[in-house]
């Protein structure tokens, strides 16, 4: 009786091991392939430069808010190995570095009170030209991105929406995942900003 119980236990254990093996094997394979994919996409580090006001006298608070929001949003995407600030000495030690340059193209200062009273006027609109440049000065990505605040929120919320749109644009860009960013993408991203408008 005892030997039959022991045999039953051994059989059950063997069945469980055999049943579990393919799953474990498949999950290991999946995690390896995921790591390979993310590894190729995360070969690059990014340095975010301060926002250039261009010929437009954008308030310093807007420039700083855009810069800080960009850093936050780009870190959230996990697209890059590291995200550096402008002037960071550690960025010089990294081999694969892209530099994000942001220049203000268009700015319409809105009013929170006007938005709250009328709902159709007083929108704050911010439009920037975003360029991803290699250390050698080669432009990898060149897009115009908008960030607006139409209904609710303070004027500075436009910078948050703008940063989110830029991060999304970079994430969806096909050239970042490749080993050598050779493709140059130019264009304008306007539809993407619609979701950011509040």
């Amino acid at each position, binding site marked *: 009786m005892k030997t039959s119980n022991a045999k039953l236990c051994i059989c059950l254990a063997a069945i469980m091991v055999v049943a579990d093996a393919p799953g474990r094997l498949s999950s290991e394979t999946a995690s390896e392939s995921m790591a390979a994919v993310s590894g190729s996409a995360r070969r690059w580090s990014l340095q975010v430069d301060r926002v250039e006001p261009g010929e437009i006298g954008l308030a310093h*608070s807007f420039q700083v*808010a855009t810069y800080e*929001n960009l850093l936050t949003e780009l870190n959230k995407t996990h697209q890059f190995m590291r995200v550096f600030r402008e002037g960071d000495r550690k960025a010089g030690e990294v081999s694969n570095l892209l530099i994000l340059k942001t220049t203000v193209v268009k700015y319409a200062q809105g009013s929170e009170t006007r938005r709250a009273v009328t709902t159709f006027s007083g929108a704050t609109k911010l439009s920037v030209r975003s360029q991803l440049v290699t250390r050698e000065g080669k432009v990898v990505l060149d897009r115009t991105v908008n960030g607006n605040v139409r209904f609710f929120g303070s004027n500075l919320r436009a910078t948050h929406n703008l940063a989110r749109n830029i991060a999304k644009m970079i994430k969806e860009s096909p050239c970042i995942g490749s080993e050598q960013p050779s493709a140059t993408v130019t264009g304008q991203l306007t539809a993407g900003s619609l979701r950011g408008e509040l």
Partner: protein
Amino acid sequence: MSRLFVFQNHRKSLFGRQVACSLWLLLLCFSIEAWAQSAAPSARASFSIRATHLLGFPNTKNNCNGDLTIKDDALRFEQDSKPEAEVKIASVQGVFLGSESKQVGGKLAKVGKAAAPYGGGRAVSLFAHKKYDSLTVEYADDDGGVHGAIFQLSKGKAENVRRELVARGASPGLRDDDSMEASTAEVSHENK
């Protein structure tokens, strides 16, 4: 004899005057020294003001209220009952002022205004706004990376903070946001 007595008296009175004079001078010196000693710490006294941190200060939540303090050689922000965060004044690269008009009341007021019938909320919005000063501080971290922090203060208070920071060695900004607002107010710009 009487002349000798008068001469001696005169010498005594002269000596007394000299002693009184020197005592008075000594007292004056001590009082000046004491005043200087008491004035020296007041020049380095801490400066504190109520502010709202909008973004950018290290280890601090966005949109939170607290005390912005300038003490010794650091700019500190202390949230209510939380450890304070600080930035060395020597690392501050620019301090810029601006002004902003915002709706008051927070989210609760927004919901109330939206729910008010016959557009009553809009009428309330017309009056429920307040002007604030914005203080933008650009500073560098230990690795040289540029950071920016934005604070919101009551109208007219940001200038005091900037004056205090500049007096302690921070470099002032070249242009304030106020001067820009005049050129950009409610006008759309296009870079063609």
